[in-house]
């Protein structure tokens, strides 16, 4: 018995420790996926045949090395967001990769095997134009960087500048490209639009200008898009107006005019309105480019041409063809061309670059995703096979940012969904019941009980019990069957069909909306993408709002989600209705929204099909209901007088409240103006609709109750001062009742500035700001209480609350910067709350709300000890055990989503940013299920031990009694 007592004592003592991860829980219920973003540059390491490296630089300012066999990351470097971390160019030579960052501000060289920096140099200011590797006598030694008005040459091994020169007449000439051939010269090409081209020759050794000439080209407006250098220093340009190609040897002194070659002579024609594109290839920077090049004449027409002895010869015409790319392995250069095969597939073929002849048996079939976008980039990795023929693999990037790596004859080696690097919003939806579960549920339906008598109900009960037994036996058999197979061969494939709700509702469907307009349905347990849907024609500046209108609880009605897509500039929006489990677009007719949408409102009112009603308010304050059946309109008329909504106009600093009228028009009932000259509204947040508060008050040390002010209509409005001087800047917070417009509380934090992150929940608001005086982040918590008595304990009404709430506030120093803030959420709200803090280091801190309690006393008293209040300390602790994602850091965490599970102790957490991390947290430990480390062996051995001990002692006692009787 003693050890049970001991164990109980231990577990009680542990209750006070905050939730943390145990080492054996790693990967048990959490997963992370790492992303890189939209690929801008991709280079295969062709240095050695066995190399698996694929270097990529993306629009998310990420430079990474991928394993080209698996698609996993070898390493990844995440730079600053915005233009200062923007990767302008990626060049590779040998083991080193040279990257130009931040509009030509920094030049970095990376050691690609380790993933460490070799050197970094700061370049002079000036907008970046081009960069090129420069070789001298078959050896690449330098890198040249062309800026708007200067050129500099850097040593590849140390990064030191060899020379830097200002460009002549840089205010009138736009220098755009750079070229270096084999002969110790660097050519800088500039243009005066619609006038002439300027060619400047620099000597590699000391940057001396060897020659400078200008060539008439009145038709040309830009060098970059229409020109390329082919063969040994021949500038080749294309013009769609005159339908001709122009050539010019860069080096020759005598030729001062571009030679015109009409495309008609080659029987070619540029499609009207299309800007032709020239693509050449320079396999080795120390040698001149090849004389073959691609000319794209229309979106689906490429031709391979060859420049020879001043003439252009047609090698092969690819029509139709979507994409074409060169690749080199060793001495051999090939061209891969993607052409349509049928509606759903494309075929990629390999051609030798010098002849245009097709390589046999090199077709790769690329199947296009019917729910995806069109392919738009093709990267080819060519390699020499053992028999000296050229083999290849391709990476295809599509419009919806899917990277697919294929090998012959069309096997998908790996696939990455890079759209997930930019998740905008997400929701979690319960999974549906399986057929058997649904049938069992149906047994308790109202209709069934009335229709059937007693006996059929008993029979039904028995039959459903039998079905359960059958299912269980099948499950056991499967377990047994799987256990016999070696572990590696057991595939845990997750498909939509086998997914069903688990007994604690821990597994859910994650709906993710990405900035590129691609929707994903992801299994929260494994992270498998179950469905994806690319919405075409999404403007890049759209904002999204995802609304769950009908959950899975209303069988047989399918669940229903609505996505509001709104153009940020015009405010015009459209609705996309879909089934969140299968990702299928719903057939329901959607209202057209001719006017900009200002606000949406999901009402608790449901229509006859159990879908919640969504109200959309346009800029004329007219309301559109969706769904808008007669039933709904009738209900809306009945409840119109109690439907209120608010609008925020941050440009005018105006918050206004409206009430719905019976005819679906609105009336203004309140307005709060926050003068924009002094401060601007940064954010407005209400409370989450699915939040439950379990206890109405707090029991104090003297056994009295302090009731919480639980106003469901309360809005927290954060403002920042327009004056950014550190002495005068401030952050303001207003708590406004959304129905009456009454300002419940306002607070100002002086000498503070944003970015402000805040959480509004229950009866508290927690916000973080930057204290510009002391240069630190500070947390501030506001808690609202009604006092010792509740005014109206049955129902809360904003219109009838005569007493203002008591407001308590306390602030703390937080010793780290913050990216995002969110609070945990559980089913019934019994579990204590934690704050989840996303840090720039990628860790997610689970901070007990207990530490953010404005009633923390400065001096400990008997009563405060009774209440379990922690004494006030100015600095908030950060413990490493509180990092819920241990070493699985989430880069650039932008949002944290929390959802309750079926277990009261458990909250599901998804952190998204560049990466996605999913886990479960137990803020008050797992009090409602047996813990992971529950010692079954100990308990059963104790039980058996006791049993045998009693058996033995019984026998002994019998013997003893017998002996005594004989005495």
């Amino acid at each position, binding site marked *: 018995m003693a050890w049970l007592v001991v164990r109980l004592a231990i577990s009680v003592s542990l209750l006070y420790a905050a939730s943390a991860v145990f080492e054996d829980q790693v990967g048990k219920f959490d997963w992370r996926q790492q992303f890189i973003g939209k690929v801008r540059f991709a280079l295969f390491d062709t240095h050695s045949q066995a190399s698996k490296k694929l270097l990529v630089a993306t629009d998310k300012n990420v430079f990474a090395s991928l394993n080209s066999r698996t698609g996993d990351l070898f390493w990844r470097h995440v*730079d*600053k967001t915005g233009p200062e971390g923007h990767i302008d160019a990626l060049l590779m030579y040998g083991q080193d990769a040279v990257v130009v960052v*931040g509009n030509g501000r920094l030049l970095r060289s990376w050691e690609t095997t380790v993933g*460490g*920096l070799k050197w*970094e140099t700061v370049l002079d200011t000036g907008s970046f134009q081009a960069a090129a590797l420069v070789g001298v006598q078959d050896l690449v030694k330098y890198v040249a960087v062309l800026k708007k008005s200067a050129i500099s040459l850097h040593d590849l091994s140390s990064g030191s500048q060899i020379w830097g020169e200002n460009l002549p007449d840089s205010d009138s000439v736009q220098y755009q490209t750079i070229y270096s051939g084999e002969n110790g010269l660097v050519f800088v090409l500039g243009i005066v639009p619609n006038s002439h081209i300027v060619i400047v020759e620099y000597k590699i050794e000391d940057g001396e200008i060897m020659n400078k000439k200008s060539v008439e080209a009145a038709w040309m407006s830009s060098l970059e898009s229409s020109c390329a250098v082919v063969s040994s220093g021949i500038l080749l340009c294309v013009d769609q107006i005159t339908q001709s190609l122009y050539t010019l040897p860069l080096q020759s002194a005598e030729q001062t005019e571009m030679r015109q070659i009409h495309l008609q002579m080659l029987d070619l024609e540029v499609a009207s309105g299309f800007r032709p594109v020239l693509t050449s290839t320079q396999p080795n920077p120390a040698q001149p480019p090849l004389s073959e090049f691609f000319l794209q004449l229309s979106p689906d027409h490429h031709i391979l041409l060859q420049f020879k002895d001043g003439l252009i010869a047609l090698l092969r015409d690819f029509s139709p063809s979507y994409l074409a790319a060169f690749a080199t392995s060793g001495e051999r250069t090939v061209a891969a061309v993607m052409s349509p095969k049928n509606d759903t597939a494309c075929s990629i073929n390999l051609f030798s670059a010098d002849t245009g002849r097709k390589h046999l048996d090199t077709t790769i079939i690329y199947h296009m995703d019917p729910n995806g976008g069109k392919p738009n980039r093709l990267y080819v990795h060519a390699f020499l096979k053992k028999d000296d023929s050229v083999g290849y693999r391709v990476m295809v990037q599509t419009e919806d940012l899917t990277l697919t790596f294929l090998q012959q004859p069309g096997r998908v080696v790996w696939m990455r969904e890079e759209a997930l690097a930019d998740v905008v919003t997400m929701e979690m939806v319960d999974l549906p019941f399986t057929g058997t579960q649904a049938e069992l549920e149906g047994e308790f339906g109202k209709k069934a009980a009335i229709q059937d008598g007693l006996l059929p109900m008993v029979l039904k009960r028995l039959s459903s019990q039998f079905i359960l037994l059958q299912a269980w036996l099948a499950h056991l058999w499967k377990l047994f069957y799987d256990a016999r197979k070696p572990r590696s061969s057991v595939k845990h494939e997750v498909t939509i069909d086998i997914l069903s709700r688990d007994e604690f509702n821990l597994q859910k469907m994650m709906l993710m909306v990405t900035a590129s307009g691609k929707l994903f349905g992801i299994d929260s347990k494994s992270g498998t993408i179950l469905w994806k849907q690319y919405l075409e024609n999404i403007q890049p500046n759209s904002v999204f709002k995802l609304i769950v209108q009908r959950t899975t609880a209303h069988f047989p009605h399918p669940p229903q989600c609505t996505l509001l897509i709104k153009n940020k500039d015009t405010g015009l929006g459209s609705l996309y209705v879909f089934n969140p489990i299968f990702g299928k677009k719903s057939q329901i007719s959607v209202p057209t929204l001719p006017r900009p949408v200002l606000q949406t409102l999901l009402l608790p009112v449901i229509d006859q099909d159990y879908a919640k009603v969504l109200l959309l308010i346009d800029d004329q304050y007219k309301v559109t209901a969706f769904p808008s059946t007669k039933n709904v309109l009738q209900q809306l008329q009945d409840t119109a007088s109690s439907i209120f909504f608010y609008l925020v106009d941050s440009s005018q600093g105006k918050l206004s409240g409206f009430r719905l009228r019976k005819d679906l028009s609105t009336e203004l009932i309140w307005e709060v103006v926050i003068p924009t000259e002094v401060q601007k509204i940064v954010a407005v947040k209400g409370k989450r609709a699915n939040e439950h508060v379990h206890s109405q008050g707090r029991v104090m040390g003297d056994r009295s109750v302090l009731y919480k002010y639980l106003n469901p209509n309360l809005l927290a409005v954060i403002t920042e001062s327009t004056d950014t001087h550190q002495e005068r800047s401030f952050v303001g917070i207003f708590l406004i009742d959304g129905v009456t417009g009454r300002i419940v509380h306002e607070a100002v934090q002086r000498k503070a500035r944003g970015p402000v992150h805040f959480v509004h929940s229950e009866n508290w608001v927690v916000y973080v700001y930057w204290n510009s005086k002391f240069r630190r982040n500070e947390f501030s918590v506001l808690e609202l209480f009604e006092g010792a008595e509740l005014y109206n304990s049955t129902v809360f009404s904003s219109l009838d609350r005569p007493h203002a709430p008591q407001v308590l506030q306390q602030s703390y120093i937080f010793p780290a910067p913050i990216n995002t803030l969110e609070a945990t959420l559980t089913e019934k709200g019994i579990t204590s709350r934690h704050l989840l803090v996303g840090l720039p280091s990628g860790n997610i801190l689970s901070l007990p709300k207990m530490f953010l309690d404005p009633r923390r006393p400065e001096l400990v008293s008997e009563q405060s000890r009774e209440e379990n209040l922690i004494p006030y300390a100015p600095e908030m602790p950060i413990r490493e055990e509180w990092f819920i994602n241990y070493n699985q850091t989430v880069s650039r965490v932008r949002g944290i989503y929390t959802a309750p599970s079926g277990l009261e102790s458990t909250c599901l957490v998804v952190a998204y940013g560049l990466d996605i991390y999913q886990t479960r947290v137990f803020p008050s430990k797992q009090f409602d299920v047996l813990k992971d480390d529950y010692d079954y062996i100990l308990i059963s051995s104790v039980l058996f031990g006791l049993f045998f001990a009693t058996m033995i002692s019984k026998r002994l006692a019998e013997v003893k009694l017998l002996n005594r009787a004989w005495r």
Partner: protein
Amino acid sequence: MQQMNRLLDIYVALQALFALSWCFSDAEPGPVAGSQSNGDRFKIEGRAIVPGVKTQDWISTARILVEGEEYVGFLKTDGSFAVNDVPSGSYVVEIVSPSFRFDPVRVDITSKGKMRARLVNYIKTSEVIRQPYPLQIRSSGPHMYFMKRETWGWTDFLMNPMVMMMVLPLLIIVLLPKVVNTNDPEMRKEMEQSMNMLNPNPELPDVSEFMTKLFSKGSSKSSGGNKGSRSVAPKRR
């Protein structure tokens, strides 16, 4: 809030006491237009050391963050680093690595480009405890992300005071009769007397006997009916 204010007052007073020569300009550490000349931008240099670990094993996952993600730097293959393009101001420089822990350092840069490093103290923000510059940041070991599971071992169990309290009387009960000769009738009488003294209430049931009775009844089902009444008031022989 009041507490906060009071604390702030204390810090202001402390600042006055320290009377530091605060020669650092209060440049806004916000983003400055890129058109500025190189003279106003400085470089924070240093080296990160993880004792006993090769640099190539950890540098690819580490980054240098200056004031959150305001400025970002990367580690060179030898463990040194430089964060370029930082205007004058005061910054917290931190090396973040998912595997190793580094303490942050505050770096102050004057408008002339003079650098100094000091310990980060968020409470007494103006206190200066100098650190070497260029920075030498030594890792204080791997991160301790995980809680220790309470393990169950025999030693823990045996050394527990409760168990000790149970084991010692047991030993006495078992060993004492062996030591003392119980066959001697005088001795026996004496012991019985002392036992009666110890146990003043003869009505109280003997635990061992009660247990045997209970279990013997549990196994034989015939006497299950009067089990309840007997166990409520068991008699002593």
